[in-house]
């Protein structure tokens, strides 16, 4: 596991609380303003940052993140800009884990090795690729692992017991449990099914399990924080960026703080 992700989860375990994993899209609202939104996430209490790589065809995403992708690409965001944003973040936040999340094509375009080297050079700790399942790991996984970058895999309600070992093979950092079969930003799964799924996953892996898709309210976040090692929130934050543009940092900070407060007190209440 990358050093920063490892240390983050160790310290969270000591504090007996779950991680708040916060997602925004790189280049949204603009390339220059992304850094301030990232800072707002950290100031609001996010423990791990997921930086979305915009793509023309985000087929696993709902309308909120689709629009964020279009806004970012509309501002001319390039892969070089994304790594510059990552590098800037790392220079301001030495210890906050940063994970890139996106689709395969922009990641492999210049070769997996190039991408892995860029991640290592700019302080990226892990990569989540939506459309490279375990079966196609060779397209990107080996290069990332060689560069010391975590390959963060997704498990879903359709990932059955027979398949789970394949998903876990080569996975590191944490396991991202997608709580609903569907696209981002839509409905949330029932708490009981999340609890059961997380406990089934934790029986098979020592990796921390973070739960995402459809998490919007502090109450939902707290419920998940009681059973999982991390809570991922994306669409709700991205919607604030879409609504407030360059003025997004303040409302983003306030919203993330409401989530963070709920998560921090979840296991005490």
């Amino acid at each position, binding site marked *: 596991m990358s050093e920063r992700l490892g240390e983050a989860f160790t310290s969270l375990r000591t504090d007996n609380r779950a991680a708040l994993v916060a997602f925004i899209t790189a280049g949204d609202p603009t390339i220059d303003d992304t850094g301030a939104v990232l800072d707002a996430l950290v100031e609001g209490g996010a423990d791990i940052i997921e930086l979305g790589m915009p*793509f*023309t*065809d*985000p*087929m*696993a995403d*709902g309308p909120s993140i*689709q629009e964020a992708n*279009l806004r970012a*690409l509309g501002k001319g965001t*390039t*892969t070089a800009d994304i790594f510059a944003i990552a590098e800037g973040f790392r220079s301001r936040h030495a210890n906050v884990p940063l994970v890139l999340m996106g*689709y*395969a*094509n*922009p*990641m*492999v*375009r210049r070769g997996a090795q190039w991408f892995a080297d860029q991640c290592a050079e700019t302080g990226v700790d892990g990569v989540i690729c*939506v*459309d*490279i*399942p*375990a*079966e*196609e790991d060779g*397209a990107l996984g080996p290069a990332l692992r060689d560069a010391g970058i975590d390959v963060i*895999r*997704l*498990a*879903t*309600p*359709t*990932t*059955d017991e027979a*398949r789970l070992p394949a*998903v876990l093979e080569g996975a590191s950092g944490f396991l991202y449990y*997608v709580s*609903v*079969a*569907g*696209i981002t930003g*839509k409905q949330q799964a029932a708490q009981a099914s999340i609890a059961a799924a997380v406990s089934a996953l934790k029986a098979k892996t020592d990796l921390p399990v973070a739960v995402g898709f459809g998490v919007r309210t502090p109450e939902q976040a707290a419920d998940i924080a009681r059973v999982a090692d991390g809570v991922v929130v994306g669409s709700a934050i991205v919607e604030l960026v879409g609504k407030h543009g360059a003025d997004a940092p303040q409302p983003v900070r306030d919203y993330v703080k409401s989530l963070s407060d709920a998560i921090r007190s979840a296991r005490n209440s």
Partner: protein
Amino acid sequence: MTNHSPAPNSYRTQPDESGHFGDYGGRYVAETLMPLILDLEKEYRAAKQDPAFKAEFDDLLEHYVGRPSPLYYAERLTELMRQNADEGMGAEIWFKRDELNHTGAHKINNCIGQILLAKRMGKTRIIAETGAGQHGVATATVAARFGLPCVVYMGARDMERQQPNVFRMKLLGAEVIGVESGARTLKDAMNEALRDWVANVDDTFYIIGTAAGPHPYPELVRDFQSVIGTEARAQLMERTGKLPDLLVAAIGGGSNALGLFHPFLDDKIVEMMGVEAAGTGLDKKHAASLTGGSPGILHGNKTYLLQDEDGQIAEAHSISAGLDYPGIGPEHSWLKETERVMYTSVTDDEALDAFQLLCRAEGIIPALEPSHALAVTIAEAPKRKRDAIILMNLCGRGDKDIFTVAEALGVEM
């Protein structure tokens, strides 16, 4: 990016067990879909071994679709091309007439196969994407035939230029959902269909319209469409005692071309040409992924794509909505690199000229998609000897395109 590894012993044994055609193909999908496509692969393997499945498929193709489709010697067109040819030159032009199928194109062959798979898997809801609307119509048709609800995703721009097909789908009981994202064409419809599928994996079968997408789709679509080439090979042998010298087919995703080519791939003397849409020109707006693109990953497979240096997908353009897609089936990427098939492209204007020529020379109104193949066919015929045979897949009829053609020709209707 030409691969100079030695030619394989057979070109007909792809894909490998993990769904790869050489470097291409594969299963690049979200984890939610992985168990489903593994299940589909298992079901397809079982269906292939099941004589009852094949019997039902063959029966529907014969009595519902109207197969075998005729093999037609285009005598007047052949003579017309010979007028401009040198002495002793001017190949015979033959058409495999899949435009005479029920619903007017080759698309129905594949839909019959996939709905039988859906039934076998106990799925109760059908979804599809469509570009020109031919695949949407074919899917709506088989869904009606089997009494299953059907949702078709179609780019809003394509809906505007293919109104008759939108109405056809509605008549057949399908719900047509206009897709407003991106360029509002085929690729955006495919994104939306994938979003639907991932949210409805339990009950929904996605009938993909071309030989692309995650494994096993490229393989099974090719297999269902191979009835075209299998019939054509037998028909031509019976009529002439010869194999064709050249096969020509249009390529969007590439299913009609693979359907024609695949049964001939190991006949070394048979040349093959795939014709992509060059739009307004390869240096302008086009849909020629193989001729003007580079390898990448989209919609479940690794294949040639139109993309920029950062891997963002470019908008395709063609006057033919059915060719207007920035990718191509992965088997074509492999056939290009092994050099078994030659790929070329034809502009909107060249396709329009060929379209009009066929109407008058043979009394056949072709779809704009095979009009691209026709432009190459009539260019090749005068260059080849009189006893040579060019066999072109006339994969769709042009009724759906008359408004587009009228507009392009500046005719008020």
